[in-house]
């Protein structure tokens, strides 16, 4: 198949449609809006909703009714969606949420890229839950990992995040999407209108609220966590470039990893694609290097999680303010 040009957001749309998207609700926001522009032209059920809380609530309803469902937003909208994210975890509803990140907090720098919602993606909603998130670094990967996000959502029966950023979402690249083959996961849960099930945000057993039973909560949480972790374990996507001449492993992800990829002659590189849960494979790989450096477009959010995951000190190189330069990163790396 001949190559075409696609931007990250466009590739996300194509991936979602390939995965079997049947419903989209969203609220306009830079830099994610192109996703809803494209989907409004498609044949799927579509709502230009009143806000992001409505968007996330609608996709939960639509998913329960049997349609693979998605919304897309950026940081300010992602904050509003945290309520629905918790509900979808508690009710075990598969949905996909795209967050194309920009510089915050608040309205921040709407057109400039950041990776500063990592902790929000990890644990933005209240209560305990397990987050699954993918972060591609090219237009082709936006297509591929959108499909994988839908698959993981079906497998884990919970919300799955596809992270992007203002650069990746608008990055036009030559792509060959037909060459990317991903097996699709079909819906297993029966749609609404086929029984007397009660889907609730309350802790419940067989549809009956169990809100004062601590022991049952512990059992429920363990089985929920085991199920989501085991489903996530079938999506262990990462890229590792070994470097036997270097004592340093650089961890970077998403768009920033494109700049870091130029440094493979000087350093070993690890790029998680499934950024959450943190990949177990990293434990063994990290053992081979004296120093671990995390470079990311935020003030050390993923690095902090890596430190606690590896139980060792990690060097943090924040790339802030929305622009990326490989030269600046190199300079910073030498500035030890």
């Amino acid at each position, binding site marked *: 198949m001949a190559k075409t040009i696609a931007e990250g957001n466009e590739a996300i749309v194509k991936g979602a449609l390939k995965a079997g998207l*049947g*419903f989209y*609700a969203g609220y306009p926001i830079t830099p994610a809006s192109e996703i809803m522009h494209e989907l409004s032209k498609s044949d799927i*059920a579509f*709502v230009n*909703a*009143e*806000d992001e*809380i*409505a*968007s996330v*609530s*609608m*996709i*939960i*309803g*639509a*998913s*329960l*009714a*049997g*349609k693979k*469902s998605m919304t897309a937003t950026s940081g300010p909208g992602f904050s509003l969606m945290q*309520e*629905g994210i*918790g*509900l979808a975890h508690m*009710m075990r509803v598969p949905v996909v949420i795209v967050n194309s990140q920009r510089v915050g907090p608040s309205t921040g720098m709407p057109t400039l890229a950041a990776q500063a919602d990592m902790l929000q993606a990890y644990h933005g909603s209240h209560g305990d839950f397990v987050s699954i998130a993918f972060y591609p670094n090219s237009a082709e990967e936006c297509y591929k990992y959108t499909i994988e996000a839908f698959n993981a959502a079906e497998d884990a029966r919970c919300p799955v995040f596809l992270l992007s950023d203002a650069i990746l979402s608008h990055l036009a690249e030559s792509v060959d999407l037909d060459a990317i083959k991903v097996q699709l996961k079909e819906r297993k849960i029966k*749609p*609404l*209108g*086929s*029984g*007397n*099930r*009660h*889907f*609730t*945000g*309350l802790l419940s057993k067989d*549809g*009956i*609220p169990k809100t004062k039973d601590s022991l049952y909560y512990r059992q429920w949480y363990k089985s929920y966590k085991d199920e989501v972790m085991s489903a996530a374990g079938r999506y262990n996507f990462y890229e590792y470039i070994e470097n036997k001449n270097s004592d340093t492993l650089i961890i970077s992800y998403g768009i920033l990893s494109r700049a870091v990829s130029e440094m493979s002659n000087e350093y070993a590189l690890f790029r998680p694609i499934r950024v959450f849960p943190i990949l177990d494979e990293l434990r063994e790989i990290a053992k081979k290097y004296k120093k671990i450096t995390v470079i990311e477009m935020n003030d050390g959010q993923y690095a902090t999680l890596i430190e606690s995951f590896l139980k060792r000190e990690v060097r943090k190189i924040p790339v802030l303010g929305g622009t990326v330069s490989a030269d600046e990163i190199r300079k910073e790396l030498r500035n030890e």
Partner: protein
Amino acid sequence: MNDLIKNERMPAIWCQGCSLGIVLGQFANVLAELGLSKENTVVVSGIGCTGRFAGYMNLDSVHTTHGRAIPVAEGIKRANPELNVIVVSGDGDLSGIGGNHLIHSSRRNIDITVICVNNEIYGLTGGQLAPTTSIGSVTMTSPKGSDIEPINLQGLCTLNKNYFYARTTPAHILHMKERIKDAVKWKGFSFVEIRTRCITRSKNPAFKTGQELLEWLKKSYKLTEENRVLREDELGMVKNG
């Protein structure tokens, strides 16, 4: 009693004398009379005393986060237009925290029915001021009596070209049943406001028994058959579309 209520879950958690049991029974009767069943109907609730409604229905039901019953219901309806989708929730849930969704789902005229049991107070959380609280009402957060005009649900629900709004009370039981039926049959967004008070939290007036509450409702409202803007003390139905 028909098989649309989960009998094994009775009695419900609601206080003795609460109107919600009357609404539940009549609602189930309406569904049965219209031939609505597990195969074609979903009930959605938000949070609050009325929020527990969905869990007592013997069909697929969804108990959402606070205020989100309407957008969850709209998502369900858009994903599967064959389903009858009915929201039953409280006044705080639908007109306070979920007020924005009420405005916009009604504007989009999505074909769902919303039944709002309006007791003019946040009952489950201990009796605080709601958007629906009448002027002068003493609540936990308006100790001197509310001095704020309550939200005009009739006005909100009749803003657009097409609308269905009915007001009733559990004391006018046949009227309530028939208006719920009309609303479920209506093509487009329909809204039924069931006026009542909280048997436990309402202070002025306060009620000792359910019977006292029903008698007060019966005395406070009169029925009209006219398709025109309802006065504050009137029960009826206004519709266009």
